[in-house]
C-alpha cells in the first residue's frame, strides 16, 4: 500500500494505491473517487451498540467506510470535509496516538481504532469531548486538520502549551494537564475558551493552525439570526 498527498496545502487529497486484497478504513464520506476494482463497505465498527454510543458520545459518524481492492489492484482518492492539510503517519507497532474525533481520515487495516473515555477534567475542559480515538497497531494512518498541520517535537521532560481547540493528535508517551489560560474562572467557563493543555514530553503533538470553534463563531455573526 502506498499513499501520496495531492495538492498539498489547504485543499489536498490523498491518493492511496491498493494491492489486490488490501483494504483501509476511512471516515465515512472521505472517498472522493476510486478505481472500479475498489469496493466500498459501510461497516459499523464495534457492532451496532458500539457505533451508536460512539455516535452519541463522540458526535462521530456512525460508520467507518472500508475500501477494499477485492477485484484487483487499484487506487482511491480521499479528502476531508474541511479545508486543511493532510498528514500521513507510519505507525510502527509501539508508537500510539490519541486523535481528536475530527482528525481521523483513514487508516490501514493494521491500525486499531479505539474510542477511549477521558478523565473527567480532560473531557470537560479539554474541548475534545469525553471520548477520543486511540490509534495503535502498524501501518499507514492519515490525519486531517483545519488549516495547516504543525508538528511539535518534545524531548523527555520538555514542556509546551497548546490551546485545546488546536489539538489534532498526540503520542501516548506525552502527558498533559489542563490549565486555564486567563485569570478568572468565570470568563473561562462562560466562553468555553481559555483552557490550554500543558504537554510534557517525550513525544509528538500535532496541532492545526486554525481553530474550528473560533471559525464557527466568526461565520455565525454573518448568518441571519434564526428565530
Amino acid at each position: 500500500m502506498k499513499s501520496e498527498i495531492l495538492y498539498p496545502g489547504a485543499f489536498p487529497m490523498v491518493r492511496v494505491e491498493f494491492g489486490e486484497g488490501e483494504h483501509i478504513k476511512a471516515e465515512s464520506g472521505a472517498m472522493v473517487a476510486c478505481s472500479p476494482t475498489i469496493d466500498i463497505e459501510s461497516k459499523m465498527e464495534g457492532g451496532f451498540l458500539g457505533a451508536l454510543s460512539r455516535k452519541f458520545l463522540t458526535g462521530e459518524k456512525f460508520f467507518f467506510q472500508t475500501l477494499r481492492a477485492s477485484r484487483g489492484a487499484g487506487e482511491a482518492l480521499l479528502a476531508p470535509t474541511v479545508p486543511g492539510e493532510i498528514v500521513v503517519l507510519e505507525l510502527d507497532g509501539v508508537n500510539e496516538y490519541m486523535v481528536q474525533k475530527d482528525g481521523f481520515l483513514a487508516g490501514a487495516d493494521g491500525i486499531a481504532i479505539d474510542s477511549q473515555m477521558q478523565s473527567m477534567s480532560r473531557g470537560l475542559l479539554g474541548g475534545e469531548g469525553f471520548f477520543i480515538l486511540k490509534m495503535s497497531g502498524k501501518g499507514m494512518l492519515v490525519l486531517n486538520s483545519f488549516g495547516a498541520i504543525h508538528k511539535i517535537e518534545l524531548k523527555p521532560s520538555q514542556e509546551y502549551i497548546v490551546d485545546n481547540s488546536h489539538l489534532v493528535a498526540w503520542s501516548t508517551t506525552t502527558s498533559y494537564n489542563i490549565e486555564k489560560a486567563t485569570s478568572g474562572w468565570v470568563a473561562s467557563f462562560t466562553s468555553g475558551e481559555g483552557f490550554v493543555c500543558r504537554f510534557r514530553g517525550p513525544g509528538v503533538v500535532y496541532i492545526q493552525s486554525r481553530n474550528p470553534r473560533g471559525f464557527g463563531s466568526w461565520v455565525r455573526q454573518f448568518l441571519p439570526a434564526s428565530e
Partner: protein
Amino acid sequence: MVDTAPNALCFGDGFPATGVPCVVHVEGHGLTMAFLHNVHGTENGSDSVPFSDMTVSAGGLDHDQLVVKWNSPTEQRTLYLKNPDLIRAFRQAAPSHLSSPLERAAEQVRQVRKRHRLVWGVVGGSLLALVLGLWFGSDLLVELAVDRIPIEWEQKLGESAYRDFLGGQEVMEEGPVVAAVEEMTRRLANQIPDNPYRFDVTVVKSDVVNAFALPGGSVVVFTGMMKKAERPEEVAGVLAHELNHVLQRHGLERIVKQLGFVAVASIIFGNQQGLGQMMKQLGVELMTLKFGRAQETEADLTGLQLLYRAKIDPSGMITFFERLAEKDEGRVELLSTHPMSSSRAEQLKAELAAMPTVTPEPFVFEWDKIRTSLGVSTSTGS
C-alpha cells in the same frame, strides 16, 4: 537490526521525538535493548543498562507506562514500557533498591485508575439517576421545579399558546351562550379559596366536541361540545375538570418533565439543537394537552368536589363523558384527550356515591334557550 517486534520506545537527545522502537529484554543484571534502526551513540544497534544505574517512575498519558531513566556516556536516555508482560518481568527481576520506586509507580497507576473509575461512576450514576428520575415519574422533582415557577410565567406561556390557537378560530364574542359559560365558570371559581388564577372563558364556534384550559387560566369551550350536552351540569362538569388541570398546574408539570429530560439528554449528548426543537414541539402540544393518567384522575376527583361545593349536580360530569363514549360520532376530541375507560367511570361513580347529597342551586340562564340559540331542536326536552 532485529526481527522480533518492538515492545518499547527509547528517547534521548539524539533520537527522534517519536522515540526509537526497540526490543527490550529483562536480564539478571538489567535491561538489554535492540534497536530497529541503527542510531548514533549505540553499538551495533543495541545497548544495555544495569539495574544499578536506572531510576523508575510511572509516565505517559494515563500514567500507566513504566518509565526507565539512566545516563548513557553521552546523554540521558529514557525508556517507555507499556507491555504488561515486560513490566511484570521487570518487577520480578528488579533488585531491592528499585522495588520501592516500582511500588510507588504501581500505586500511582492504581490511584489514577481508581480515581478515574470513581469520578466516572459518580457522574454516570447521578446522570442516570437524574434521567431515570425525570423520565419515570419521580414526580417529586417535577413538583419541586414547578413550585418555583411564578404564576406570571405560566400566564405568559398560556397566553402565547392561546393566541396561536385563536388565530384560526371563529370566536363567539357575546350572547346567551357566552353568558351561560361565564356564569358556570364564575359559580365554580367562587368556590376556590385563594385562587391565584383569573379564568378567561372563550367560546369558539366549531362543531368539534372539545373544551380545554391552558396553563395560566385561559378556558376554551367549543360550541360543538355545548350542543352535545343535554343538561348544563354536563358542561359545568367538564369545566370543573378543566379548571382543576389549571389549579394543579398539570400543564406546567408536563412541560417541566419533558423539558427536564430533554435538557439532561442534550447535555449528555451535546445536542443543543434538540432543546430548541423540543420547545417548539411543546408549544404545539400545549394545544392538545394530553395529561398523564394520574393527572386526569386528580382533575376528575377535585372537579367533583368543586362541583359539589358550587352546588352543581356532580353527576353531569359522569353522564356526559359516558354518553360521548357510547355514541362516538363526529370529532369528539374531548374523548381522545379524556378517554372514558370503565375504571375511570367506576372511580367517579364510587366517589360520587361517597359524597353527601347536595341540593343543587339552579343556574340563572335557561338551558333550553341556550340550546335553541345553538341551533339544537329542543323538542326532546327536559
